[in-house]
């Protein structure tokens, strides 16, 4: 490099390097050209598709959920549109700051913040989550004017569920809640994930849960052009959503209201069924709850109030709680005696006031006994001794085999979720129920208790009403159901639910007539006479008392026992006696004798159903309930 160079040599040397530079540029630019050819010609289809995918978004259009109305068209569940303020956390930098700034424009409570946090934990990161629901028009306007300050925040019109009847049918209609991870799993198992795109709520309880597939409908979609921020630029095409089917119930909201109010603040349940169809006319579990509390996320205070109350309002006693049937079991026992030929209607026993079995005295209610007792008297006066003997004659297997077709101790298959099966005791059941060999053996004395509806017997009010319906319907058994029709709102087509009986129990008309006649006399001269005094129709019934607490040796005296330890009070009834239109079972927890607390409720319900008569002090339904349709 140190050798002498002439300027000419320098120039030619430089020119060589300029040529090298030019060639280098040409190579590099050719490389770029090759890259462009690759992207724009070779892989054009791929990138064209990618650009279209970018541009076009398929936006789900959630369907309108079906309405729920009672048998007379009274609205029990419907939708209403409201504005919500939504935040898409993935598009927002500082969430807390954004919410703080938003709270200067619209009212955001601590409850809203907590709920937002909870929803956010449950949702996917790119989903939008409501921070406020049910915005007023003024709040919407205030936000829209400042929307540019809040990227990732938007106002959306949403449909909310509303239950105009409040707590009247909380346990029947149920409620909706936000879709959680467990719901997502269920939807995946059903292959419904795609159909729920864009849907945020799902039925959680009651009919909202059990008829979810009917109520939901088919999600539609809109093909829209979107920008990089995901905002809709224009609509390209649309597939409309198919609204969900609506439900017409067998339930009569007026009857339900009468029954609901008859309970007052007592705990208990009532199930009334139309025997000729199995349609549930009223299903009460008291206390009830207001499903509207759950619609946009229940507050902690409300949830605690419901969940921790000793009265357990969220428990559906009508279908989930099983109680010993007490003496309401006797008509079925009597029918078993006749049908198996162990008894005739005329056959009478002498009742000394007790029955001895295995060295143990099983006591009658009446000291000194009822004297000579035939089937009719045994039901009208509720004689225990008659049934101790009958139970012994039938044997536990005989009892279980006869009772099973009536649905005792089995799921009825009602169209509501969360039914319990109860216990129809049998040696087989006991073997499965207990683990220790010593406990697994069935003792003869246990059969005697079962005969009067105590012991291991445990049936839900729904099972009692279903069994009574079968008894008064000549042994024709229907699956009880709350929904009468599923209606397609677009075509108006109705599909009837459970229109056919599920089985026929072979029973003799004469036997059935004898039992029903005895039950009618219960309400005329027996334990139900006081409650049904002056009735303008003929009704059959039977009282019952389920023991909660057994007092060894001493006589049970209501006044001495704490309220929660008092016996449960049962009443089963049907009317009119010749052609029953209603059969019901009432249970009042810790209500004492059935004749005192349960029977009057049955009377009010039947009075209303057959005569349209309202108990004194109850307002007409058209005045206290919001008017619909």
């Amino acid at each position, binding site marked *: 490099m140190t050798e002498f160079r002439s300027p000419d040599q320098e120039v030619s040397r*430089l*020119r060589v390097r300029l040529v090298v*530079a030019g060639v280098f540029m040409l190579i590099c630019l050719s490389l*770029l050209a090759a890259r*462009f050819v690759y*992207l*724009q010609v070779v892989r054009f289809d791929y990138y*064209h598709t990618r650009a279209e995918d970018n*541009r076009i978004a398929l936006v789900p259009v959630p369907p309108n959920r079906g309405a729920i109305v009672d048998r007379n068209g009274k609205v029990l569940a419907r939708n209403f549109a409201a504005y919500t303020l939504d935040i898409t956390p993935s598009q927002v930098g500082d969430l807390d700051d954004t919410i703080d700034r938003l709270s200067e424009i619209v009212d955001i409570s601590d409850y809203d913040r907590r709920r937002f946090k909870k929803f956010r934990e449950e949702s996917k990161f790119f989903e939008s989550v409501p921070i406020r629901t049910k915005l007023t028009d003024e709040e919407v306007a205030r936000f829209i004017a400042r929307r540019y300050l809040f990227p990732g925040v938007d106002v959306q019109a949403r449909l909310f569920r509303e239950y105009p009847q409040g707590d009247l049918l909380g346990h029947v209609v149920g409620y909706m809640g936000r879709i959680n991870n467990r719901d997502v799993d269920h939807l995946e198992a059903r292959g419904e994930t795609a159909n729920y795109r864009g849907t945020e709520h799902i039925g959680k309880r009651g009919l909202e849960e059990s008829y979810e597939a009917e109520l939901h409908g088919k999600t539609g979609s809109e093909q829209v052009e979107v920008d990089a921020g995901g905002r809709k630029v224009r609509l390209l095409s649309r597939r409309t959503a198919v609204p969900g089917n609506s439900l017409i119930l067998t339930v009569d909201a007026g009857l339900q209201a009468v029954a609901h109010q008859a309970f007052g603040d007592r705990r208990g349940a009532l199930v009334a069924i139309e025997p000729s169809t199995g349609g549930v006319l009223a299903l009460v579990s008291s206390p009830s709850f207001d499903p509207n509390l759950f619609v946009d996320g229940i507050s902690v205070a409300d949830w605690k109030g419901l969940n921790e109350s000793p009265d357990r309002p969220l428990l559906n006693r009508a279908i989930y709680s099983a109680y010993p049937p007490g003496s309401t079991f006797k008509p079925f026992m009597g029918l078993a005696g006749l049908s198996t030929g162990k008894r005739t209607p005329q056959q009478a026993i002498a009742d000394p006031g007790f029955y001895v079995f295995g060295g143990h005295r099983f006591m009658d209610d009446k000291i000194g006994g009822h004297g000579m007792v035939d089937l009719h008297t045994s039901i009208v006066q509720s004689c225990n001794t008659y049934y101790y003997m009958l139970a012994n004659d039938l044997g536990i297997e005989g009892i279980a085999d006869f009772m099973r077709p009536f649905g005792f101790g089995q799921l009825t298959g009602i169209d509501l979720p969360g039914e319990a099966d109860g216990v129809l005791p049998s040696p087989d059941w006991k073997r499965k129920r207990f683990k220790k060999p010593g406990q697994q053996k069935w003792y003869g004395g246990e059969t005697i208790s079962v005969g009067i509806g105590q012991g291991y017997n445990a049936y839900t009010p729904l099972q009692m009403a279903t069994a009574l319906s079968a008894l008064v319907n000549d042994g024709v058994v229907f699956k009880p159901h709350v929904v009468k029709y599923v209606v397609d709102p677009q075509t108006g087509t109705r599909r009837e639910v459970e229109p056919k009986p599920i089985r026929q129990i072979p029973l003799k008309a004469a036997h059935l007539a004898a039992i029903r006649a005895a039950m009618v006399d219960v309400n005329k001269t027996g334990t139900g006479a006081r409650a049904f005094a002056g009735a303008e129709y003929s009704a059959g019934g039977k009282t019952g008392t389920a023991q909660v607490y057994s007092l060894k040796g001493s006589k049970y005296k209501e006044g001495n026992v704490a309220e929660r330890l008092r016996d449960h009070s049962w009443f089963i009834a049907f009317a009119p006696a010749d052609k029953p239109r209603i059969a019901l079972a009432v249970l009042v927890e810790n209500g004492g004798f059935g004749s005192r607390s349960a029977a009057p409720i049955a009377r009010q319900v039947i009075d209303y159903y057959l005569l349209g008569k309202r108990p004194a002090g109850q307002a007409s339904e058209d005045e206290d309930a919001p008017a619909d349709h």
Partner: protein
Amino acid sequence: MEFRLHPVALIRAILRPIDPPLFLLLTVLLAAALVVMQSASPARMEAQLANTGVALALMWVTARIPSARLLSLAMPLYVLGVVLLIGVALFGEISKGAQRWLDLGVARIQPSELMKIAMPLMLAWFFQQREGAIGFVEFVLAGVLLAVPVALIVTQPDLGTSLLVAAAGLYVIFFAGLSWKLIVPLVLVAVVGLGSIVAFGDTLCQPEVDWQVLREYQKHRVCTLLDPTSDPLGKGFHIIQSTIAIGSGGMFGKGWMQGTQTHLSFIPERHTDFIFAVMAEEFGLIGALVLLVVLFMLLLRGLMIAAAAPTLGTRLLAGAITMIFFTYAFVNMGMVSGILPVVGVPLPFISYGGTALVTLCIGVGILMSIQRERALSQS
């Protein structure tokens, strides 16, 4: 001196410093810039027109200055640049994690921009001073002159600009005749280095690996290029979306104002660094190739001017300026089409931005000035 000028004479006086081929090619590029800008960001049209006017005026002014005078400005500009860079290091404003701006009260300036012109000017002037006696010592001195400002810019940290300034200086050194025996190993080291980064990208890009020399964001840029999908909503989003824009343009493009990637905001920075993606989406491969051809013709004209320049300093300066144009264009289009890392380099003459456009047009002005002197010396 005659004060009454004939209109034709006036036009001739105005056009005298202008090199027609360069001017024609530049006009095509600037017109294309306006057409694309109307689609990419119509709100910036007025500003772009104003920038273009100012830049052309400064080009004309520069073109009238004799190249000897330009070279004599080298030392003051270089010293000013270095002083300002030191000022930035001591008192500069920090923005986006880097200290690049110096607030002079009147205006905020970025001294590293000045260095892009001052560096080749300085080295060209330096070699001109040592003409006929350029040896090992001169190259070492040139290396020092180059290293000081580059080091200052690297520590800001601004890797992109420091590489461009370094490149500008290296081009001068290359044209000044640095031995191939040194150039070949340097190029080999660079190629091997880049090659190994690509080959071992997966391991190197693990979050716990510290790259020592490069800052976290620079490591991020390189890693994103190696696997754009690893960060689809961050930096990788830029590259993915711009390659989609280019690819979906196809042979003939989607048509002016019809680019969906452009108009639905999928292309980031679409009026500045990523404007080529807009062009390629709307005008297709044809448009991209026309741009490449026009740019190449402009570069060839620059090399021709360098080859015919009257003095060593002007030869080196013209060659280096041409190579800088090339470097901007190549790095920008390479980045937008996904074969080079995302470096903040504008597409020369097309991207929005007054500073860059003025700098580039002054560069064109220098080329014209050199070309005019050659024409004068020949006549």
